[in-house]
């Protein structure tokens, strides 16, 4: 099967190159018969890479340890679901995963894109195929997953214990899907620039793709936080690690794009900016891959250092030059069709929001690269860790949270003072009431205080939007509250789905603020001994060490410490934390012992217990106990955010003929029919923009 895999990879290179060449040359030379074969070529490329993937799966499942990749990442006693994740656990397999998924997306883009954008499709195929060829090229030249060993070991090394977690089965593919799908919007942007079809067509064509990318990135980042929390054992979920930062960068610029693209759709403005954001987002996704795979910056998440980093650096330079040169040459064609009317307008609020998103992205990128810059300039190695990022980014994050509440309150074009007063009154009151309540409760830490007060303001904004919309529906259509609310969301999915995303974000911020109050303590306990901790919510927890047990599981020998918990004097069950010594099928140790955290998750706080070790081989154990407030809300916020994204991208939801007509009639009556032409024109535009 490895022969089939090797052959398929080379076939993919040839088919991909063919596809890229005919896509561009067929389009440029006006030979539609060549362009017509493009779609079939993208399918053929997908077929080649699926064959290569099947060959690797076969090697993994059949324990063909003569394949170096299989021997490095699996063992005979590895549970089957982790054999699945071994496909993308290593450098080489993940490159194949990237290539096959990108070719799938490229193929889907050809199939699913409406025919009215068919002029763009050959270029789209050309760009996606060129990127696939790059990834397959890296594999065949430097990181071939089908490389064979000179001998066949009796068993493989197995999967890194930290990767033997259900989060790692889902988290990397989700993040990869986010990274990979960014290529499609980039391809459409490049196609629009190459074909000079720079109306809003390409924006409509990529709307779903950008949302898909954004959703996958959001899910991937949240699952990554969850994995870090339950698996790494340090008690938190975000450490500003370079690889974490690399995943955040394209998410930030993509989020900026999702906001600014609305201005282009409604007003024909920010065309250059939006194209720049798409090109930048694609480059940042490649930059993230470069960071993860090059070893240029040390990270707990990175793959083994290898020379593939040079390929990615070269590709980054080429793609950046291609994207920005293209943008530069089409600059005069990208004039705005309107200009901003006022600082007090939603367009301006979106611009400031974009400035902040891109500013935060720059700040994270700057912090990630600053050690390299410092070493280049001063010859001094420095560390840029969480204290730096928190100091620089927390104020920016709070500003962004504030803008999340301000944006929806300001009218398009220009808001009058009366309008601003009416819109801001209740949300500001909600924010101030939250602030007063927290101060009265004795909270004095400035950042959590501001975060929670701003969250109150944003919650007020969103509640007001839902309340007004629902009330209007109830009044106009005589609908009961639940139906009015359901239809309000269902018929304005983009707007209210967006608000749900904002709800998710504010839940995130509240949960992040909660971690400022975490408690942690180390204790050495003999069986029967206990330690007491008081939580920020006023509960008293007693942790009693019951003892240590040892047993064998499928591919590991487990040393488990069991803790009995009481909360305010009442029994609250048992928590177990483990040390795991992974072994191969011959019972030989494969990795250093790893730690499995014991977590009891609750709405108020998580109990987080880590067995640090045992004293001199006895049952006397050293534990770390953490009380982590509001962590559950991080995961819940992620679910709300993703739900909002799904509502936003769900098909349909626009105005129906029945709902559109009364709106137009309303304007005509209001103007007494005398300025009907102007009113019709405006009413169409406004009605379209309101949904």
């Amino acid at each position: 099967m490895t022969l089939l895999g090797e052959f398929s990879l080379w076939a993919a290179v040839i088919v991909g190159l063919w596809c890229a060449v005919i896509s561009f040359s067929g389009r440029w030379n006006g030979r539609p018969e060549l362009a017509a074969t493009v779609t079939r070529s993208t399918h053929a490329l997908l077929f080649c890479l699926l064959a290569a993937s099947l060959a690797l799966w076969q090697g993994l499942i059949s324990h063909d340890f003569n394949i170096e990749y299989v021997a490095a990442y699996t063992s005979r006693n590895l549970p089957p679901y982790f054999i699945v994740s071994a496909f993308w656990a290593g450098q080489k397999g993940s490159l194949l995963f990237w290539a096959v998924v990108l070719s799938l997306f490229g193929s889907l883009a050809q199939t699913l894109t409406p025919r009215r954008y068919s002029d763009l499709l050959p270029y789209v195929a050309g760009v996606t195929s060129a990127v696939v060829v790059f990834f397959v090229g890296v594999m065949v030249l430097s990181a071939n997953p089908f490389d064979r060993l000179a001998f066949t070991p009796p068993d493989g090394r197995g999967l890194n214990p930290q990767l033997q977690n259900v989060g790692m089965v889902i988290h990397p593919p989700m993040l990869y899907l986010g990274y990979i799908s960014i290529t499609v919007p980039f391809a459409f942007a490049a196609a629009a620039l190459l074909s000079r079809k720079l109306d809003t067509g390409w924006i409509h064509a990529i709307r779903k793709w950008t949302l898909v990318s954004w959703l996958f990135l959001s899910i991937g980042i949240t699952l990554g936080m969850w994995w870090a929390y339950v698996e790494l054992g340090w008690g938190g979920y975000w450490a500003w690690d370079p690889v974490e930062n690399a995943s955040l960068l394209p998410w930030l610029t993509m989020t900026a794009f999702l906001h600014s693209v609305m201005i282009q759709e409604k007003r024909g403005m920010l065309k250059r900016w939006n194209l720049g954001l798409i090109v930048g987002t694609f480059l940042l996704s490649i930059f993230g891959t470069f960071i993860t795979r090059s070893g240029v910056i040390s990270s707990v998440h990175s793959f083994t250092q290898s020379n593939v980093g040079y390929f990615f650096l070269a590709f980054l330079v080429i793609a950046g030059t291609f994207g920005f040169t293209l943008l530069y040459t089409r600059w005069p064609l990208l004039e705005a069709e309107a200009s901003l009317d006022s600082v007090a307008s939603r367009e301006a609020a979106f611009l400031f929001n974009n400035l902040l998103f891109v500013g935060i992205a720059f700040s994270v990128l700057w912090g990630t690269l600053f050690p390299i810059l410092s070493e280049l300039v001063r010859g001094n190695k420095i560390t840029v860790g969480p204290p730096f990022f928190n100091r620089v980014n927390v104020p920016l994050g709070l500003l962004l949270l504030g803008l999340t509440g301000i944006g929806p309150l300001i009218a398009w074009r220009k808001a009058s003072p009366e309008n601003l007063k009416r819109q801001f009154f209740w949300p500001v009151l909600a924010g101030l009431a939250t602030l007063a309540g927290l101060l009265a409760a004795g909270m004095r830490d400035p950042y959590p205080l501001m975060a929670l007060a701003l969250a109150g303001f944003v919650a007020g904004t969103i509640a007001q939007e839902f309340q007004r919309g629902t009330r209007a529906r109830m009044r106009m259509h005589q609908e009961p509250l639940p139906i009015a609310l359901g239809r309000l969301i269902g018929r304005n999915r983009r707007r209210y789905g967006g608000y749900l995303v904002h709800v998710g974000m504010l839940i995130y911020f509240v949960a992040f603020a909660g971690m400022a109050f975490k408690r942690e303590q180390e204790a050495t306990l003999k069986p029967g001994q206990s330690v007491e901790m008081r939580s920020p919510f006023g509960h008293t927890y007693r942790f009693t060490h019951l003892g240590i047990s040892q047993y064998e599981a499928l591919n590991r020998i487990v040393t488990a410490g069991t803790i009995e918990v009481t909360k305010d004097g009442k029994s609250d069950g048992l928590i177990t934390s483990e040390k795991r010594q992974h072994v191969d099928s011959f019972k030989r140790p494969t990795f250093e012992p790893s730690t499995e955290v014991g977590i009891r998750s609750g709405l108020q706080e998580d109990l987080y217990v880590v067995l640090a070790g045992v004293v001199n081989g006895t049952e006397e154990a050293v534990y770390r106990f953490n009380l982590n407030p509001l962590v559950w809300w991080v995961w819940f916020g992620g679910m709300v955010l993703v739900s909002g994204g799904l509502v936003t991208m769900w098909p349909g939801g626009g105005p129906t003929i029945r709902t559109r007509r009364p709106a137009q009639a309303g304007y005509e009556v209001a103007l007494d029919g005398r300025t009907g032409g102007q009113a019709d024109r405006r009413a169409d535009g406004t009605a379209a923009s309101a949904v």
Partner: protein
Amino acid sequence: MERQPARFDMAGDCTRRGFLGAAAGAVAATMGVVATLRAQGEEPLAGQGANGSLRDPTVAGRSRNPTSARDNDEAIKRIEQRLHCTCGCNLDVFTCRTTDFSCTYSPELHREVVALYDDGKTAQQILDAFVVKYGEQVLMAPEPGGFNLLGYLLPGVAITIGAVVLALVIGRRERRRSLALVAAAPGAPGASGAASSSDATPEELERLRRALAEVDD
């Protein structure tokens, strides 16, 4: 032909007491053996390990020393959270020593911090001592001074400049538009009747503006 008793037929030569005694002994011995075998096969319950010792301590990770009060000292913890562990991880000393239990560097660095703290050194003096010994990279974040200020300030400065420029540009366009509207208004000096694109009255335009604002809301 007389049948010979079987050699194994011992009952005929054995008294009832002897037989019962032997049977009881056999049952007791069997139970003892079974109990011993079961005890050997069973996992020790939590907290009931033989003599409080683990069956195989080698698989339980690096042996730990009992924690001391110093390990939970808030002041020491705050200092350690500003120091980068030198083991190659990206964690601070406190987080590394309480997370990566195979790391031998962070416990040693912790001992150094405690020793300096016990010598009466302030937090800043301890950090300075570490910088002298391990270089600037031992700090989790560079001191905000000199070239490092660029790292701290550039993002904020860039965003502030961007916001100011944006506000100025939008404001200038807004003023230009207002002036143009005033100049084009009916009755304004130099304005012609054709400048008005609509024959709507000001009241009607105001109603339109309000209606549009409602839809925009």
